[in-house]
């Protein structure tokens, strides 16, 4: 009895008591109400939803910017917008899509909302940090658009090469805004990465050994590690840029020992893993939807997990393939070509495993599955053109042309956006409690898919006809006009498809069919909660017996008991076998993450105008952090009474 371990028991419980427990847990875990309450939220589903909505709004904004670009490019030598505005718009389009939509949606939003549910716990690790990361993301995005609206938006491309973005050729604050946006979004992503890893390492339901972790969760864990090791690249690149521009450092000035390509190496050390950070969650979604809709455990679980890990590693060995034209030694060219082609092996493995799952299953063709089929059609084309650009000689022809624009839109939209729309259709019932309309869903799928191909397929041809990228116009006699016009027309279909999707969401929130907890009869733990989940997630914290928790559950699968339910207590488990290890307490709603985010924002924005702002801002930041962590008397007294120390 003095053993510090979990004990298997039989329990008699009454339905009435369970209902009372539910009401009680509801009170303990409730999110704060009211206007001020909004700023104190700490539950992962709340923050997750905020991430989703905010990231999607940024997606729409960046999509509208693309529409302006397509309008300008629809006519040769057009004067609809001038080069300065065009350069800001294409930079904003790329920057917003990559930093404010793709990573925050595919990684942060989806993992914050779903990972705790999928591993069977009540909240994500470090909930206050989670809230802080959201506010930072939001404020960074608002800063970017605020400056864009006063004609000070970044205009050097989403990767802002030096010297063009440096102090000599990038006047004004535009590149500083870009560099500081990076800081906001990178802190946000890094925070979530740490939270996800700790949640998956230490907060899994007992019984969820490593080989029973859902593939979706594996994907997000691999992505988290990639974020941790890749983001420092852009941190250093953008910090050196900011210092060169504001503090007269000379990192990138060849005249005094600096180096222009140093920026590219640092940036692409991050930049290549970044695209896999965006793509791997897409594969994680596909694995999930394919299993549910093919009505079987996904084929090749081990191969899929190893492919995720292999992709994560190899992704760090490819970055120089963005620099093939810069004059690198031939030995480097060979190595990076080999690595860039090699990464097709784990990708191919995944595709073959999914194909097998579908082909040996009994596929149900509903909207989520259609989006996954669309993923196969579209992403695979992008994967194929990836081999073109992995080959140095071919890349030296197509690099920086519309061919590459086609390639990355096929892999990014095919590999992330298609699965994302599938994920929305799949999980909308769980998040909102209502089903999306199948009919409108299919219309938006086809409009989007057709529109996507009309807009982006001709770009392969256009690039091979010599049109470089990032040009605000082109000559009438270049022979590029017709293709550009077809592409611009395609945009209208994309616009229609996305608009229909928004309409679907709007309508379904109001009048959609009410959803049961598990409308797709899926196997994941998230389907064991209400739709939408209660603020405590699971009435009874689960244990797990297989890779698809609900499909593999025993008739009498044990649930957890013995936690203090008058506080936000959860169980911690061991990494390798998810055996219960200890108990911990999740924090209650608090305003400190919001205050800290405001102070941090002031520090970040101030520092691009006056570097001294960093030193001055450090003081209120320290105060905010002390407020964040300082314990309350009530909490300390209570814990003193109940503490059980580990025997070690």
């Amino acid at each position, binding site marked *: 009895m003095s053993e510090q371990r979990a004990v298997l028991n039989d329990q008699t419980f009454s339905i009435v008591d369970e209902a009372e427990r539910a009401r009680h847990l509801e009170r303990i875990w409730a999110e704060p109400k009211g206007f001020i309450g909004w700023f104190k939220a700490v539950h992962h589903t709340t923050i997750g939803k905020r991430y989703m909505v905010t990231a999607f709004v940024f997606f729409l904004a960046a999509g509208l910017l693309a529409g302006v670009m397509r309008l300008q490019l629809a006519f040769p030598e057009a004067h609809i917008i001038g080069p300065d505005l065009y350069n800001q718009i294409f930079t904003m389009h790329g920057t917003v899509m990559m930093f404010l939509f793709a990573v925050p949606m595919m990684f942060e939003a989806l993992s914050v909302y779903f990972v705790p549910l999928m591993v069977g716990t009540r909240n994500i690790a470090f909930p206050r940090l989670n809230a802080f990361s959201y506010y930072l993301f939001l404020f960074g995005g608002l800063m970017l658009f605020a400056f864009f609206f006063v004609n000070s938006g970044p205009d050097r491309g989403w990767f802002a090469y030096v010297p063009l973005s440096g102090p000599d050729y990038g006047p004004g604050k535009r590149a500083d805004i870009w560099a500081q946006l990076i800081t906001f979004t990178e802190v946000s992503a890094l925070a979530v990465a*740490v939270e996800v890893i700790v949640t998956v390492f230490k907060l899994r339901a007992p019984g969820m050994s490593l080989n029973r972790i859902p593939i979706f969760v594996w994907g997000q864990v691999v992505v988290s590690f990639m974020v941790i090791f890749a983001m420092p690249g852009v941190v250093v690149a953008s910090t050196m840029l900011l210092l060169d521009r504001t*503090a007269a450092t000379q990192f990138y000035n060849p005249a005094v020992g600096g180096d222009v390509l140093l920026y590219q190496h640092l940036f692409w050390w991050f930049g290549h893993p970044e695209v896999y950070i965006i793509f791997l969650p897409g594969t994680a979604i596909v694995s999930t939807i394919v299993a549910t809709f093919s009505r079987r455990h996904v084929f090749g679980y081990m191969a899929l997990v190893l492919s995720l890990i292999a992709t994560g590693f190899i992704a760090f060995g490819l970055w120089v393939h963005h620099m093939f034209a810069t004059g690198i030694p031939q030995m480097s060219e060979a190595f990076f070509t080999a690595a860039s082609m090699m990464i097709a092996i784990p990708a191919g493995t995944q595709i073959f495993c999914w194909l097998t799952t579908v082909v040996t299953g009994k596929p149900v063709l509903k909207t989520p599955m259609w989006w996954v089929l669309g993923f196969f059609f579209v992403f695979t084309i992008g994967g194929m053109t990836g081999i073109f650009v992995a080959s140095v000689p071919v890349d030296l022809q197509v690099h920086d042309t519309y061919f590459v624009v086609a390639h990355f839109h096929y892999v990014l939209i095919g590999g992330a956006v298609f699965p994302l729309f599938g994920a929305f259709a799949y999980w909308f019932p769980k998040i909102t409690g209502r089903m999306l309309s199948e009919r409108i869903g299919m219309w938006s799928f086809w409009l989007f898919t057709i529109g996507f191909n009309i807009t982006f397929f001709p770009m392969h041809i256009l690039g091979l006809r010599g049109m470089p990228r990032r040009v605000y116009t082109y000559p009438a006699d270049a022979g590029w006009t017709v293709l550009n016009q077809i592409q611009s027309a395609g945009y209208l279909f994309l616009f229609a498809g996305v608009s229909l999707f928004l309409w679907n969401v709007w309508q379904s929130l109001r009048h959609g069919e009410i959803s049961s907890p598990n409308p797709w009869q899926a196997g994941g733990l998230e389907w064991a909660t209400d739709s939408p989940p209660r603020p405590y997630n699971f009435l009874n914290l689960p244990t797990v017996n297989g890779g698809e928790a609900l499909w593999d559950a025993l008739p009498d699968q044990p649930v957890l008991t013995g936690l203090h339910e008058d506080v936000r207590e959860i169980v911690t488990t061991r990494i390798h076998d998810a055996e*219960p290890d*200890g108990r911990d307490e999740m924090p209650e709603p608090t305003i400190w993450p919001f205050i800290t985010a405001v102070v941090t924002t002031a520090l970040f924005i101030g520092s691009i105008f006056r570097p001294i702002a960093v030193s001055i801002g450090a003081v209120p930041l320290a105060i905010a952090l002390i407020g964040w962590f300082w314990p309350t008397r009530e909490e300390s007294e209570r814990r003193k009474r109940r503490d*059980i120390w580990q025997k070690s």
Partner: protein
Amino acid sequence: MAEELTRRRQVLDLSMLPNVTFATRSLTWWGTIGMMAIEGGVFALVIAAYFYLHSRSQDWPPGVLPPDLTWGTVNTVIFLLSVIPTEWYRRRARKGDLGAVRLGLILATFIGVANLAVRYLELRHLNCDWSQTAYGSAVWLLMGLHITHLLTDWVETVVLTVLFYSPHIEGKRFVDAEENASYWYFVVLTWLPIYLVLYWAPRWLRS
């Protein structure tokens, strides 16, 4: 309406599990490790940038002397010696020894002051200017990054010292004390390669 109002089920009873857990059994510990991985990555890349810039230049350091050895070495010695009291109070923290932790944190505060004071002297003897050469920029950036961590750790130590004299002491605060010791180890361990790079690499690379 004779319904079954009670049911039986299997449960896993967790009430015996400890809630004050250290190191790998503590969530905060993992969070700190995550932070170390991130910041360690930043340091590694700046050091890589330093050597990359070296590979692109003829003269290293270009036109200036390497940083004077004295104060950097003094600080390194202080850092290394500081491991002794740090490890002591870290282990006592795991046992809940309030007196030892208080003493350890006070010692850590004073050691931090010493490090910061010597660091100030180091800055005055770097023999380069961040605005004159890329070399100078790299030296000051490496220093600046480490100073940020040194300062942040010192402030955290001070706050924790105050906390340990408040009535809020219970198990979780001892876990925080262990975290503080771990963060200090990070500061010390990252300093060692930086010390070698800033002070010794230009001397070794010259020959």
